């Protein structure tokens, strides 16, 4: 799948020349099995928690956009019998490996409460990460809320050679923007408490109008990603989008993370979570 499907459907290619072979592997192979890592620290990052872990047994350089299946090593099962399965989280940084966690439900809340010294089970890195931007194109990172997590890792890998447009609920949530170390960062908030009062896609539209050779890298709520894909199509720029789906395993075992592309259903954990905009149906 991947580019094949899009190619078959006869869409336009990217405006800038792509390197024949990407500089980073889209996927870094994970050690088989679940390993235990130690939590190094847990601190606030806006409305989220930043958890650094000591993953000695894992590969040093996961590709930005790859994710890990996480579960606390103790006290994972809650009093109502959930969470039981591990939960997928993008790494926001490597060396040390770090995750940005939005406590929205039982699993993410438990992880967000991990203390330094406690253990966390992890499997990963998993999935296909971002491809590096083509030579000459400006990498434009578009993030919404907790969706900034994989963009943090991407900006780090690009050594800051990118621009970021980040949207948040409010100024407090926007404090997490500091994790995306881009050359230029523009912010939007839903309540106008910081930066543009409105959607991050407003910022994107303006930036694209201004012109230039761009390549988009986006992660955020599904409607945002669909809007980014639409904007990319209209402006004829390539876009790589990191999606979410419910995941039981993260390594292709359960077929639970069905995601629809032009080529039909695929497993988002294996062939994604980064999807080329042109492969969307």
């Amino acid at each position, binding site marked *: 799948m991947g580019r094949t499907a899009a190619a078959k459907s006869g869409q336009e290619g990217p405006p800038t020349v792509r390197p024949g072979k990407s500089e980073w592997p889209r996927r870094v192979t994970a050690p088989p099995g*679940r390993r235990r890592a130690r939590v190094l620290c847990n601190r606030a990052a806006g409305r989220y928690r930043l958890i650094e872990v000591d993953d000695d047994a894992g590969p040093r350089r996961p590709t930005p956009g790859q994710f890990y299946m996480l579960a606390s090593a103790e006290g994972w099962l809650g009093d109502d019998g959930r969470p*039981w399965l591990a939960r997928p989280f993008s790494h926001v940084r490597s060396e040390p490996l770090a995750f940005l966690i939005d406590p929205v439900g039982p699993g993410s809340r438990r992880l967000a409460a991990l203390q330094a010294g406690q253990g966390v089970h992890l499997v990963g890195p998993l999935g296909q990460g971002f491809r590096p931007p083509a030579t000459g194109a400006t990498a434009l990172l578009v993030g919404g809320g907790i969706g900034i997590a994989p963009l943090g890792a991407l900006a780090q890998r690009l050594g800051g050679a990118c621009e970021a447009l980040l949207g948040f609920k409010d100024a407090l949530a926007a404090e997490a923007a500091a994790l995306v170390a881009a050359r230029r960062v523009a912010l939007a908030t839903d309540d106008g408490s910081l930066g543009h009062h409105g959607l991050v896609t407003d910022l994107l539209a303006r930036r694209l109008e201004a012109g230039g050779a761009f390549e988009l890298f986006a992660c955020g709520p599904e409607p945002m990603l669909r809007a980014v894909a639409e904007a990319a199509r209209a402006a004829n720029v390539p876009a790589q989008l990191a999606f979410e789906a419910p995941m039981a395993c993260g*390594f292709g075992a359960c077929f639970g993370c069905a995601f629809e592309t032009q080529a039909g259903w695929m497993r988002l954990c294996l062939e994604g979570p980064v999807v080329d905009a042109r492969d969307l149906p």
Partner: protein
Amino acid sequence: MSQADAGGSSPDRAVRDPATTLRCEPPAIGGFRPPGRVFNGSGTFDALAALEVFGDALLASFPFDVYVSKTITLAPRPGNPPPRIAECAIGMLNSIGLPNKGVERFLREELPRLARLPVPLCVSVMGFSRQELAELVARVGERGEVAALELNVSCPNVETGLVVGQDPAETARAVERVRPLTEKPLIVKLTPTAADQAAVARAAQAAGADAVSLVNTFPGTAFDARGSALLGPGRGGLSGPAIKPIALAQVREVATAVSLPVIGMGGICETTDAREYLAAGASFVAVGTASFRDPLAGLAIRRALAAEGQESPAKRAIV
């Protein structure tokens, strides 16, 4: 039942010490002698995907003694609409819907690659008619890579409308039909909703099955706060530790009813769980959902059971 237990043939507490079972060599399944006791549950481990993700390191620490493929159907299937999974109390619901490329592409593209695995292969098949099932068994059975076939009889028979595995006669007819088509061992995977599990198992044995496996997932559902089902098709199958006590009772009932080897599964996470299945009368166990939480969950169990077997006077060589 449990409340009254009057008149029924209530099983007693008689001890079948798992240690004793482990000291004996595992039984043969037809002409096939599994090299150990741990299978995977069909559809819960895609070894090809896992090899892509984990690389060849997986071959050196393969979690199962026998690898069972996901269920293959005659025609390709896209699977069910999402959401396909929902977590529930110490278990999960799935409504995956058997996505697969169909037998043609499975045999051409997947089977040769599965042959790289360091363990024998068992292929699970499901037909929506006896004709379909016959075609599947004939085609899969003739392949040298295949050590055994598992018949997933959880599907409704398109002719009778009955779910094959719920009815002893339907099950018998299905097994009788395919039995002459292959010399390979046939494992019948029982449906947990049969009114009389033991009768279905006996019918499978009489019709020529070489082993039975159970349990498959239990029909279940869950709703969100607004009353909407958490799964695309409205319901799914329950697996994981939540079902273990029910699965153990079914395995015990079936193991008492037939003389065939029984492959027991349902919620096995640790070696102690596997030992409970041996106590219930199973000769083999399968690890399903637990692999989702830890891809190598089976390995610890595989090693522990093999080690316990080797402590016996008649030491066996298990990898």
